[in-house]
């Protein structure tokens, strides 16, 4: 029995860790979309954050400096999207795609010399005193890298800012009905820039936490679609940080499955041998992506049923004083 317990505890603990980068990215996208800007460039911003953090950490030996630079570069990158989609009123979908292309290409150029690096300093991991000793839960939640703990704090903080503060109110107004906000003197474009930037900073953080803690190495396209998964999780989460956290950790557990199944406990009818078969990996590797499609279906159905969903002005630039279309 305890074999199974250990197995599941390990999966869930690994899930919390490997879901953390996606969590940052998802919450960042929640901010951006709540303000009305769809940013499909999360993957690109994450990659830029990841490669910058890794390279800075490798060169300076200081992972904290790496983290800071990763966040910063993610933010700077998001401003490209802000410029094109807010000021220049380009198509938000295509601009986000472009951001991903640039991020992918640029990160692979920057990361070229890092391919074989295995010894870049990582961010520290530690057990939380007392809490880590709780059976099962301690292992799942409180024996992790520092980035995982910061993630725990970020979720309620994001919820609070969105729902209980004046800046949050203004952000939601800009995403729901920018003309109303504008008529009251709220600077629509300025706020949209701000929250696209917040989204970029968090995407940078997502990338940095990946290469500095969760999978500490650099390969081209190391994020493997996690930025896209974040965009999907935002819909599943109904633009709510707590549901985003739930989705992210679940995703994390599924993502780790191919690895964890290698250590599957003995099961009746030799099922464990099937689970440990390396060829099965090609299918378990698909699971995170199929999972994302599945949660999207759930999220979309719910939105249709409850007749609520995306911020009303999501994806549309705001133009004041233009007449007739």
């Amino acid at each position, binding site marked *: 029995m305890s074999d199974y317990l250990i197995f599941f505890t390990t999966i869930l603990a690994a899930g919390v860790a490997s879901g953390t980068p996606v969590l940052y990215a998802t919450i960042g996208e929640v901010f951006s979309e709540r303000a009305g800007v769809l940013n499909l460039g999360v993957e690109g911003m994450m990659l830029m954050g990841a490669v910058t953090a890794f390279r800075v950490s490798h060169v300076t030996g200081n992972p904290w400096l790496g983290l800071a630079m990763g966040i910063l570069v993610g933010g700077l990158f998001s401003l490209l999207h802000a410029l094109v989609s807010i000021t220049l009123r380009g198509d938000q979908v295509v601009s986000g795609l472009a951001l991903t292309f640039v991020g992918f290409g640029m990160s692979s150029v920057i990361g070229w010399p890092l391919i074989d690096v295995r010894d870049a300093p990582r961010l520290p991991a530690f057990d939380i005193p007392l809490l880590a000793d709780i059976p099962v839960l301690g292992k799942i939640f409180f024996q992790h890298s520092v980035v995982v703990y910061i993630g725990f704090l970020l979720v309620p903080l994001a919820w609070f800012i969105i729902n209980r503060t004046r800046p949050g109110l203004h952000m939601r107004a800009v995403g729901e009905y920018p*003309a109303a906000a504008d*008529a009251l003197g709220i600077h629509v474009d300025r706020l949209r820039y701000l929250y696209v930037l917040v989204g970029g900073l968090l995407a940078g953080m997502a990338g940095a936490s990946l290469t500095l803690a969760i999978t500490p190495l650099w390969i081209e396209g190391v994020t493997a679609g996690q930025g896209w998964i974040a965009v999907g999780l935002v819909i599943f989460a109904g633009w709510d940080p707590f549901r985003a956290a739930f989705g992210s950790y679940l995703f994390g557990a599924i993502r780790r499955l191919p690895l964890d199944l290698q250590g599957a406990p003995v099961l009746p009818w030799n099922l464990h041998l099937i689970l440990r078969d390396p060829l099965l990996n090609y299918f378990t590797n698909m699971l995170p992506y199929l999972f994302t499609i599945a949660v999207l279906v759930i999220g979309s159905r719910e939105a249709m049923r409850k007749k609520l969903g995306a911020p009303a002005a999501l994806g549309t630039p705001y133009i004041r*004083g233009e007449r007739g*279309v």
Partner: protein
Amino acid sequence: MESSAKVDVPAVDMRGIVKRFPGVLANDHVDLTVYEGEVHALLGENGAGKSTLMNILSGLYQPDEGEIRVRGERVSFGSPKDAIRQGIGMIHQHFMLVPSFSVAENIMLGMDEPRFLLDPQKIEGTVRELSERYNLDVDPSSKIWQLSVGEQQRVEVLKMLYRGATILIMDEPTAVLTPQEVEDLFQTLRGMAKSGHTIIFISHKLDEVLAIADRITVLRRGRLEAAGVEASSVTKKELAHLMVGREVLFRIEKKPAKAGEVVMEVEDLQAEDDKGLPALKGVSLQVRSGEILGLAGVAGNGQRELAQAICGLRPVMGGVVRVHGKEVTNAAPVVLIKEGVAYIPEDRHGVGSVPNLSVAENLALRNYRWPPIGNGWRINRVALRKQAVELVQTFDIVTPSIDTPSRLLSGGNLQKMILARELSGDPRVVIAVHPTRGLDVGATEAVHRLLLQERDQGAGVLLISEDLDEILSLADRIAVIYEGQIMSVVDAEDADIEELGLQMAGTRVGAGAEKGEA
């Protein structure tokens, strides 16, 4: 200055205001002088530049030329916040309220206090106080989308009063109200004027302007026609001439109806709105050939849903739709098109036209499937262009060419294009929803003429409008809808405005007139 009572400094003084938009000179050296404590009407047709001028005064637009003085002081507004700081608040025609927010949240939006933490209770208390003082009843904790249009308007007024606005601009505030609600609003406005507030009242309705305003400024095509004339010194006819620039007929020439058999009927129709709430609660109506049935009611009482449910664009949850005796409940829209049902939707840009396609292609939207335009799986472009040339001429659509994208047409010509498309195939049933909303007098007359012409040719017309005057002048029979139910159906000759107004607000009057109850 012919103003006698007010000799002090004007509350608002706008001089030589010019505002250009691409392709339009919206304001051409316009002046406006408004004194404290008066109700000042800004009169003009749709597109005359009234809203633009007021958007400038409320800080939303910056003028290209001209100067603004508030209480004698030269001002320059960079944002609505600057205008509010000077006590100027505008209530837009399309309410600027976030539907998913509560009343209190909408009211505190954009305020400098509180700096960070929201305290809804405190705000709700203040709002409650304010609403009692001005007799503007509304529950601060309810969400905007749950409120009626009249309540939403009160929220808008409260929002401005909460900000300490003393100069209140109201853009077409009566368009969405019942006659009784209009009277209530006028009461409130008079009360506010008496207590020292200044009110600028934008309208294109002459009777209203004469009823509420102390003085009147008239705009036509972005130009000043009359500046601050005393309301007591002009007649309706003079105002109409100033507004339109020619003589206006207040009554439409109309032959008596020759109503025939029933061409379209709905029985106990039920449907939901976009939020999944019941919007039609058992509607029964009959439209006969050769008549116009006018459906009166305040917007948002199920009119849109009724039109969509009939045309197959919204699922019918219960009841029956028949066209020429044939049941078409929940039929695909194309079936209704085949049955000869023409539909003039309320949203010309969002539903009625395809903005980036050419006028010619827009005109084919209804009949592209069939010869001569549709030819097997192909489209005959020659026939498509030929049809466009003919319709543009017959219906007098002003467009640079038939290849011009329809988004470049003016509102009136866009509507003529939609009418040309819908009416050219000799429809048996016409469903027209708010067909003249936002059009100027000329275009409105053209639309009315076309609808009457259809009627005289034997089509049954269901005219859905929130403009009671329009219904009274066009319809042969009048039905009133309120919260998804038909309150009454009467012959136009027997209609009484007072009664219709009460029914639009949900009060049942008289006996025996009721029909269509579930």
